[in-house]
């Protein structure tokens, strides 16, 4: 069989680098509707669950026991289970049903019931549901800040830039566990440089993570992983009871906690027990809620490629975000790990969370280049910052970021690197040189950083972890070295620990860069999502909309065409009304602004050069070219048509001031023509000469080969604003006046 060239090209596309499989429920490879998923049921006797999802209590596994005893709100369970799932699904999209009502009923639903509800919904309905059920009024975003060298100055600089860009939380992790204390320290200082208030965490093994939090180096913990089957849970070296204890332990030190779960993890660990990913995730979420975590990061997280290999995978991932929000949990909605080779696919997937808005659109946007991302590479990276900002501007939506200037970014980066240098010096840690500080301020990745003495750093990190040093000493060190503002912010993070307000659902801090308002807590308690359809809920407006609009790339349109405006041509003069003649000639009919209020084409060619080229072409064929100006229209067809009426041969070249040209013949319908040259940015003087030559050949009745033109598919996209403004200027010169004869002071060089 001969291969199709098209299929060969398709086979090489990014989308075909990915794996697609058919469902196999026995192996856990089904996103929903496994034949082994139970049907919803619940029986309560004497205030105790005696049957759940088809299983009597004596057949419960460990997770069933936990869910039945801690995850279910028994007071509402009978009502919730008696409500048809379809009705509950409709309540999710009904703007007349408030969030609290759905949330209350969801608390009484079993895992199978939750899955049954979302089974009735398509992605658009789920997005509607998510927009309503999100806990906090305004969405936010989280950053990942890591680097391959674990360079403290670069970590601080990247964390500072991430905070400046608007990330409300910043997470780091390590390739070598012993670096963890320095990573946590560096991003703490970086995050508190600038306006302050970004929460930070270091993703490491649970016990080490708790130790870092106890020292005050981190303010939240997110990687408390839970799983939907007993065996996967135990393989994760925890139980719901130990995880809940850990959550309480963190909270007892004033540290915010979010659990982690996500479709596909159980199948990946070989313990799916034949159940669908979504059913197991529903169990995870009920464990999360039952354990008293205020929130969850879900949306498949690092397993994302597994549901994506299956039909309906991306829909299921949205469904799990929605289930979490329904249960009253803060949702950090994935979009963190590499989800696809295909930019189309990964961006399309992102829309499901970006458009409704979640508490954290990503549970880790890589605020560093992919190669420096120790979470395994981010789905969206530092290189995508501007894309993200433009998406916000395009859709007038809030995805948690703000555009920043290069100047502001360099300032906070340098200051953060200097601060971490000062703290290292004050605490007797290995020296950070001025050269390293400057490299961190201006650098993009760890490739830009000088090498450090790794064994010395690691030994110092060990000592630091085992020392009694806490955030108090860090704040003091900053104060001693003259970083009063950052010291104040680190201390404020300590004060906020004492107040505990950010332990409530979906809490973040908002600090205004230019105002006195700092560390304003925003949570589901004081800024709850009250979306009730159009005109309600959080809207991107006022100062926030101004901020989103003002990307540094945006220019004033007023000076866009300065380069096309010059002194009116002294070589071009009006000498009276244009006459109709009978001898063979070609009329060159120019637009009303030509050579006067506009003097260059969109491609930058001077109008007299263009005219000279056209007339040269005409002269080469032995004819005379007569120039007339058309006043009554700026439209190319009208200009060329008017010229053709005047032309002795009936042939005219229409020429707009921006350079767009047409060869027209008297007698042709106005919107028809002999040759059209719409790609004015691609037209050269040589092309204009050929246009003149071809027009003369038509006038002489010869056989003509159309002028070949270079086609640039991107020209319209690139130049559309300029085209608009040039055309506006041409139109402004329109007058109700017949065409005039122009005298062009030029001799053909033929």
């Amino acid at each position, binding site marked *: 069989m001969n291969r199709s060239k098209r299929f060969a090209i398709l086979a090489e596309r990014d989308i075909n680098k990915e794996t697609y499989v058919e469902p196999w429920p026995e192996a856990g490879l089904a996103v929903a509707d496994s034949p082994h998923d139970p049907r919803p049921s619940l029986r309560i006797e004497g205030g105790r669950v005696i049957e759940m999802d088809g299983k009597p209590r004596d057949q419960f596994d460990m997770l069933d026991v936990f869910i039945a005893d801690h995850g279910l709100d028994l007071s509402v369970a009978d009502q919730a289970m008696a409500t048809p799932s379809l009705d509950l699904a409709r309540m999710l999209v009904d703007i007349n049903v408030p969030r609290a009502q759905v949330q209350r009923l969801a608390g009484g639903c079993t895992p199978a019931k939750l899955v049954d509800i979302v089974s009735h919904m398509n992605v658009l309905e789920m997005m509607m549901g998510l927009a309503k059920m999100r806990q906090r009024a305004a969405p936010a975003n989280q950053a990942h800040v890591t680097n391959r060298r674990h360079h403290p100055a670069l970590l601080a600089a990247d964390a500072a830039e991430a905070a400046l860009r608007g990330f409300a939380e910043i997470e780091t992790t390590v390739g070598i566990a012993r670096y963890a204390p320095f990573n946590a320290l560096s991003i703490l200082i970086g995050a508190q440089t600038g306006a302050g208030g970004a929460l930070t965490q270091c993703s490491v093994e649970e016990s080490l993570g708790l130790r870092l939090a106890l020292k005050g180096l981190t303010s939240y913990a997110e990687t408390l992983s839970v799983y939907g089957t007993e065996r996967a849970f135990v393989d994760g070296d925890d*139980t719901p*009871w130990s995880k809940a204890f850990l959550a*309480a332990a963190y*909270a*007892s*030190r004033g540290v915010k906690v979010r659990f982690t779960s996500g479709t596909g993890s159980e199948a990946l660990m070989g313990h799916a027990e034949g159940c669908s990913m979504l059913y197991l995730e529903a169990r995870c979420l009920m464990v999360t809620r039952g354990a008293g975590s205020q929130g969850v990061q879900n949306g498949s997280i690092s397993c994302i490629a597994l549901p994506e290999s299956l039909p309906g995978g991306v829909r299921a991932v949205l469904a799990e975000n929605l289930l979490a929000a329904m249960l009253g949990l803060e949702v950090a909605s994935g979009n963190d790990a590499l989800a696809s080779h295909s930019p189309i696919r990964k961006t399309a997937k992102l829309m499901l969370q970006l458009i409704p808005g979640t508490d954290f659109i990503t549970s880790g946007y890589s605020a560093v280049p992919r190669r420096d991302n120790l979470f395994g590479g981010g789905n969206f990276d530092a290189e995508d910052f501007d894309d993200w900002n433009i998406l916000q501007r395009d859709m007038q939506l809030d995805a948690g970021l703000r555009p920043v200037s290069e100047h502001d970014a360099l300032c906070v980066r340098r200051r953060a690197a200097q601060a971490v240098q000062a703290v290292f010096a004050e605490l007797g840690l290995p020296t950070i040189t001025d050269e390293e500080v400057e490299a961190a301020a201006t650098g993009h990745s760890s490739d830009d950083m000088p090498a450090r003495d790794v064994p010395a750093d690691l030994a110092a990190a060990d000592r630091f972890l085992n020392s*009694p040093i806490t955030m108090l000493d860090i*704040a003091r060190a900053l104060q001693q070295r003259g970083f009063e503002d950052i010291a104040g912010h680190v201390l404020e993070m300590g004060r906020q*620990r004492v107040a505990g307000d950010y332990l409530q659902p979906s809490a973040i801090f908002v600090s205004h860069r230019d105002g006195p308002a700092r560390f304003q807590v925003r949570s589901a308690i004081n800024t709850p999502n009250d979306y009730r359809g159009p005109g309600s809920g959080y809207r991107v407006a006022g100062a926030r909309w101004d901020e989103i609009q003002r990307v540094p790339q945006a220019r004033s349109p007023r000076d866009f065409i300065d380069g096309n405006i010059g002194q009116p041509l002294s070589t071009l003069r009006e000498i009276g009304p244009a006459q109709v003649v009978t001898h063979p000639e070609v009329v060159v009919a120019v637009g009303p602004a030509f050579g006067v209020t506009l003097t260059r084409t969109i491609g930058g060619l001077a109008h007299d050069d263009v005219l000279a080229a056209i007339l040269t072409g005409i002269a080469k064929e032995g004819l005379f070219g007569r120039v007339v100006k058309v006043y009554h229209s700026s439209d190319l067809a009208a200009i060329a048509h008017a010229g053709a009426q005047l032309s002795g041969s009936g042939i005219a070249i229409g020429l707009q001031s921006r350079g767009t040209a047409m060869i027209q013949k008297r007698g042709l319908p106005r919107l028809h023509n002999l040759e059209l040259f719409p790609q004015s940015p691609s037209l050269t003087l040589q092309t204009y000469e050929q246009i003149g030559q071809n027009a003369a050949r038509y006038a002489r009745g010869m056989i003509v080969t159309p002028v070949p033109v270079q086609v640039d598919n991107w020209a319209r996209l690139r130049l559309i604003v300029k085209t608009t403004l040039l055309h506006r200027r041409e139109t402004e010169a329109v007058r109700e006046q017949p065409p005039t004869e122009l005298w062009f002071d030029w001799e053909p060089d033929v």
Partner: protein
Amino acid sequence: MQQRKYPLGQNAVEQIKAASGRPLAEITPDALQAGELDVADLQISAETLRAQAEIARQAGYVQLADNLTRAAELTAVPNDELLRMYEALRPGRCTYDQLIALAAQLEHTYAAPQTGRWVREAAEVYRRFGLLAQTDGA
């Protein structure tokens, strides 16, 4: 203090005290400069955690409220002990009796009845599902 004044850090600055007893209003850069602040001045108190638990409960976040109540109890437990207790609750670490002893320690030494009950419940569940250590040597 018990009334809903959320955010407490803003609306109850005078009433909130750190674990050390220092009022929130006295945790300032000047106090830091003067060397007056101690680690316990940046630790949340049991009383504040109970207030936050109450706020969560009133807003309908019952399980979070229960968690914050256990957290209030755990403020009394020193760091090293806290790490040890968490480790003890992980699967296969302790025998049934060791877990019961841990529960008793929580109840009696740290006046943490809710958390004690939590550990007792874990001991029963671990026994039923084979999540206990096989010997006392764990």
